[in-house]
Each structure stands twice: as structure tokens, then as C-alpha cells.
């Protein structure tokens, strides 16, 4: 009797322990799954984007003109290519030959001449950007074994590239275009300088508005406000604002800033204002939390030796809470840098070639540039999109790192 009972019990216990094991494995599996999602995301973007940081260039022998104004620079590029490949005669072949270098090559020669006016009239070696198709072949994004329609280069063009490479006139270097140019229809000339400037201006505006306002609100609510219906309304309101979809802030910006106040469309000023409204709740909430963490004894000590309430807050409580407030601000800013949807609403989604120099000029932002390029038909934009994301993520990581360091260094445990 007892024997049968004990085997029954043992079986049940085994079953329960198996359940325990499975449950635990489930938890571990979920974490592994989530982490592997993160890894896949980062790795696939890294793999897809790192090639955009280098760019293929071709060295051309150019007979520089004496008169820099009336020189036909595109003609100079073509002439140089024809001289490098004298056997090419038919019109079609010539056209294919010209397509090896970027349409920006003429500008590069012009810039070279402006930088080296003493070289006018001489024959010099100038480095020009190769076309995106050549670049994709060199950096391995397309294979020479792909059919010509896929690699977008004819067998003849591939042979020419090999010839240039064998002669040592094909170089792979750091992609300066990507960091110093604005947007372009040609992938090999397109860069993120305009988007970075737009992001920078928007962020300055956002910080300049959200930080003081957020700190003021946090101090008022935490240190001065008495529990009235108005203050509890403000509290509920701030908590809800933090969860409003970002696109709704964009609609607000469109209706109030653009249509009512008639501020300029596509300007970083408006973008920064919208982002400020979005980050304000984050700053207020973290600001209040760090003010709350300062023990009452600090306030009471200040008041006891005769400081006014305002003095006790500004001379004693705020400096002690500042690291926490700054950490919250940086985290809020990091969110603002990556925000896209509200900027689409206020027209910061535009083809910007020139780097904006003020907060009123039309601009775009880094995440918007990602959105724009992700849609572009040329395959070479894919690696540039991924590279822009890498730049964006590096920025975000740097900001979060600063926040962590700040917190570690200045955090006071009471």
C-alpha cells in the first residue's frame, strides 16, 4: 500500500520537477530569443552598412585648363578616359566607359583646380569618385559572377575596371563624400552632412527649450506646489503626455506652429520645438525623481540657518539633484535624436543638397535621411542607409554612455 503510494508520489514529483525545468528553460529561451533579435538587427545593419564608409576612386590623368571659368570639365573627364583606353571607338562603348566614373567627377576636377591654381595648364593626376556600380563591384556588394542586369555593369565594363585596377589607378579610400556632402541623386555623391547639421540644430533648440522648462516644472511640482486640484491635474497630465504617440506631437506642430503661427516649413526651429514638447515630460518626470531623492535634512538644514525656501532649493537641493536631472535630460535628448514621425509632419522630409547654416533654413535630420534613403531605388543607397543608421546608433550610444558615466560619477547615496 505505502509502496504504491510512494511510487505514485514519486511520479508526480518527477512530473512537477519536469514542469519546473521546462518553465525555467522557457524563461531562458525568451531572453535568448530577445537578445538574438537584437544581435541580428545590429549585425545585419553592420554587415550591410560598413562598406559605405569606404569609397572607390579612380586616378585620372587630366590636362588641366588654363582658364578655369570656361573649361568644359565633363569633357576633360571624358577625354582623359578616352586617352586611357584608346582602343574604344564606338559611341556605345564610349558611353559605357564614361559611366565608370561618377557624374561628380567634373566638379572634383574643378575643385582641384581651385585648390591648386598653380597647376593650371599642366597634366596632373586627379583622384575622382568612381560610379556607384563600380563601387558596389569593388566592395563586394555585387559579384562579378552576377548577370550583367543584376550587377549593372557589362562584361566590357568589368574588364575595364580590372584593367584600371591592374594599372594601380583604382584606389579604395575613406568615404569623405558620405560625411561632408548633402543629399544627392547619385549614391556615390550622397552624404549625411546636411542631415547631421539639421539634427544638430533641432537638438540645440530642443535642449534650449525643454531643459529650462522641464527643470522649472520639476522644481515647482516637487518643492513648491501644494497638493491642490490644479497640481494633481498637472501631474496626471504630464504622465499622459509621456505616452502620447509621437506623431500626434507632429500634428500639433503642423496645426499650431506652421499653420497658426506661420513659422517656416521644414525648418530645424520648428523641428526642435516639436521635439522639445515631446521630451518635456521625460525631463520633468526624471527631474522630479532626482529632486525627491535629495533627503529632507538638506532642506531643513538650509532653512534652519536662515535661508529662504527659494535659496534652500537653488543653493542646496538643485545642485545635489543636478546629476540625476542631467542624466534624464540626456536620455530624453537621445530619444529626440532618433525620432522621425513628428519631423515628417512638419516637412523636415526633403531633398536637402546644401548643408543648412541656420535654424530657419530647410533641413532634414539623420533618422529622416534613413527613411528617405531606405526608399531609394538604387541599390547603393541600401548600404548608405545602413551606414547612416550606424552613425545614428554611435551617437545614441555615446549619449547614453555619457549619461551612465555622469550617474556613476556624481551619484550620491544618502
Amino acid at each position: 500500500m505505502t509502496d504504491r503510494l510512494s511510487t505514485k508520489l514519486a511520479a508526480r514529483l518527477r512530473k512537477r520537477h519536469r514542469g519546473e525545468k521546462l518553465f525555467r528553460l522557457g524563461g531562458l529561451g525568451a531572453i535568448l530569443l530577445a537578445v538574438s533579435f537584437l544581435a541580428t538587427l545590429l549585425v545585419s545593419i553592420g554587415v550591410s552598412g560598413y562598406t559605405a564608409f569606404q569609397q572607390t576612386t579612380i586616378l585620372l590623368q587630366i590636362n588641366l585648363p588654363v582658364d578655369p571659368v570656361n573649361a568644359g570639365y565633363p569633357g576633360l573627364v571624358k577625354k582623359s578616359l578616352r586617352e586611357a583606353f584608346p582602343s574604344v571607338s564606338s559611341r556605345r562603348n564610349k558611353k559605357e566607359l564614361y559611366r565608370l566614373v561618377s557624374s561628380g567627377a567634373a566638379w572634383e576636377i574643378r575643385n582641384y583646380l581651385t585648390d591648386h591654381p598653380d597647376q593650371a595648364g599642366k597634366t596632373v593626376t586627379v583622384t575622382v569618385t568612381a560610379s556607384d556600380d563600380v563601387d558596389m563591384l569593388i566592395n563586394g556588394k555585387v559579384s562579378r559572377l552576377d548577370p550583367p542586369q543584376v550587377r549593372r555593369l557589362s562584361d566590357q565594363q568589368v574588364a575595364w575596371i580590372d584593367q584600371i585596377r591592374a594599372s594601380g589607378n583604382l584606389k579604395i579610400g575613406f568615404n569623405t563624400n558620405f560625411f561632408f556632402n548633402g543629399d544627392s541623386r547619385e549614391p556615390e555623391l550622397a552624404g549625411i552632412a546636411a542631415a547631421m547639421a539639421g539634427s544638430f540644430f533641432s537638438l540645440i533648440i530642443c535642449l534650449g527649450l525643454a531643459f529650462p522648462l522641464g527643470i522649472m516644472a520639476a522644481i515647482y511640482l516637487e518643492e513648491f506646489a501644494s497638493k491642490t486640484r490644479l497640481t494633481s491635474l498637472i501631474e496626471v497630465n504630464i504622465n499622459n503626455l509621456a505616452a502620447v504617440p509621437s506623431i500626434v506631437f507632429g500634428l500639433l506642430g503642423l496645426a499650431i506652429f506652421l499653420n497658426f503661427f506661420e513659422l517656416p516649413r521644414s525648418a530645424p526651429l520648428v523641428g526642435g520645438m516639436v521635439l522639445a514638447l515631446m521630451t518635456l515630460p521625460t525631463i520633468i518626470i526624471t527631474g522630479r525623481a532626482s529632486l525627491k531623492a535629495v533627503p529632507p535634512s538638506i532642506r531643513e538644514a538650509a532653512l534652519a540657518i536662515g535661508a529662504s525656501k527659494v535659496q534652500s532649493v537653488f543653493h542646496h537641493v538643485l545642485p545635489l539633484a543636478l546629476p540625476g536631472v542631467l542624466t534624464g535630460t540626456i536620455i530624453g535628448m537621445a530619444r529626440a535624436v532618433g525620432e522621425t514621425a513628428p519631423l515628417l509632419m512638419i516637412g523636415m522630409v526633403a531633398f536637402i543638397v546644401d548643408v543648412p547654416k541656420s535654424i530657419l533654413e530647410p533641413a532634414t535630420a539623420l533618422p529622416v535621411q534613413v527613411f528617405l534613403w531606405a526608399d531609394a531605388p538604387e541599390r547603393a543607397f541600401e548600404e548608405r542607409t545602413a551606414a547612416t543608421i550606424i552613425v545614428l546608433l554611435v551617437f545614441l550610444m555615446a549619449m547614453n554612455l555619457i549619461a551612465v558615466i555622469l550617474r556613476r560619477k556624481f551619484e550620491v547615496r544618502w
Partner: protein
Amino acid sequence: MVAALFTGSLVAILVTVGIVLSLVFETFRFLQIVPLTEFLFNPQWSPQTAIRTDQVGASGVFGAIPLITGTLLISAIALAVAAPIGLFSAIYLAEYANSKTRAVVKPTLELLAGIPTVVYGFFAVLIIAPLLRDGGAWAGLSVSSESALAAGLVMGIMTIPFVSSTADDALIAVPLSLKEGALALGSTRSEAIRQIIIPAALPGITGGLLLAASRAIGETMIVVMAAGLAANLTLNPLEAVTTVTVQIVTLLTGDQEFDSAKTLAAFALGLLLFIVTLILNVIAQHIVKKYREQYD
């Protein structure tokens, strides 16, 4: 001085008033052109108004039903991914992991929430959508390249930390005595978790799920990039659907006159989105708060 500080907090109120006023005002103008019953109950959405008024389809049809079902479909897929993964992660972190693992894994999971959503959108287009299409072709299914499934899956990955963080907080906040009581009576850890700790933490967990749902409904960039534009009224996750946020973006980007029903419709959709997410947030906060009062 105090008055100056007060104005700072008034700005927060002003923002809300601004949002409500601008949305309500434009929606009111929209409803003068398109009746409310059409907006809420017409199963067809085609906002493309013709240039000449005598052309076919001169006035668009503004029925939000396909957009709402599309939004709910994608959000449901997202939650179906995020809820189990997020919950199980939180349970493991709160109840099984040692403090070292926890210190590494928790911030790693939260990284998922820190990545800009436009990055997820690109990831969906670059990796997930082709993967699903090829996988579907292999299994003999036709998967649209802008399927609801791709957008929902990626959105689910994004919302994992929203679920796991709040669930983790809720699990940690359950008094140790409850768990110890269960263990002392001979239950295994998983039994203690399932029968004692989770029921005690349920309000917090539910609140987190609601917040994640509100995130998913209001999410814009992933769906703009990975979901479609065509307003299909379908529940098939392999087909392309569109969402409320996608339509707001398409209606308002590009040049257009500001008084047409088309642009005003975006504000009506915005108001709808604002109200729905607000309700979800209020319920979530209420549940979390009520729960807190039980144990503190």
C-alpha cells in the same frame, strides 16, 4: 520666482490643450465635409480625390474601418510576439537569474527600446520581409512584400522591453513573504511563480501590456516603411494592410492645400489615435496605481 517656476509646469498643460484644440478644431472642419457615420462605419477608405470635380471618384471615401482593423491586426501580432517573450524574460530575470546576469541582461533588453523606430523599419524591409516572402514561397504561400506579419513581428521585437520592464517591476514588488510561504509549503519555484507571484503581480503586468499595446497602436515609422498603403479590409496577416498612422503620414507629406477633406482627415485620424491611446494609458496607470496601494 515661484510664479516663474509655475509657468514652467503650465507649459505642460498648454501642450495638452494645444494638442486637443488643434485636433478637435480640424476634426470639426473635417466632419462638416464628411459625416461622422461615414468616418466610423464605412468599410472603404480611398482618400484620393480627383483633380477635376467632374472626374470619376471626385470625392474620396473616408471610412476608417480598414485602417482600424489594420492597426489592430498589426498590434495584435506585435503583442503576440512581445507578450510571451517579454513576460518569460521578466520572470526569468526576476525569479531565476542571479544578480550578475540580471545586471547585464536587463540593460541589454532595454537597448531594444532605445533603438530608433526608423531602424526597425529598415530592418523589417531589409531582412524580415524578404525572409517571410521566401519562406512563404517555400511553403507554397503567397506573402505580400509589405505583409502585416513583417511589420507586426518587428514591432513585437520593439515592444519586448515595454512588457518585460513593467512585468519585472511588478514581480520584484511582490512581497518576499508570499513567495517564501509558497516555497515553505513545498511548491516548486515555477508553481510559486505561476500560482502565487503572477496573480499578485497581475495588475502591474496587465498595465505593462496595455502600455505596450498603446505603443504599438501609435507606432509610426515601422508601419510606414514595412506595411502597405492599400486599405485592405482583411485579417490575413500575409496580406498588406495599412494603419491609422501610415495614413496620417501619407495624407500630410508632400504639398497639398490645407483645407481639403484629405488633409483634414489626417487630423480626424490623429484625434482617434489620441483618444484610443489616452484611454489605454489611463486604464494602465489606474491598474498599476491600484495595485501599488495593495502592498505598500
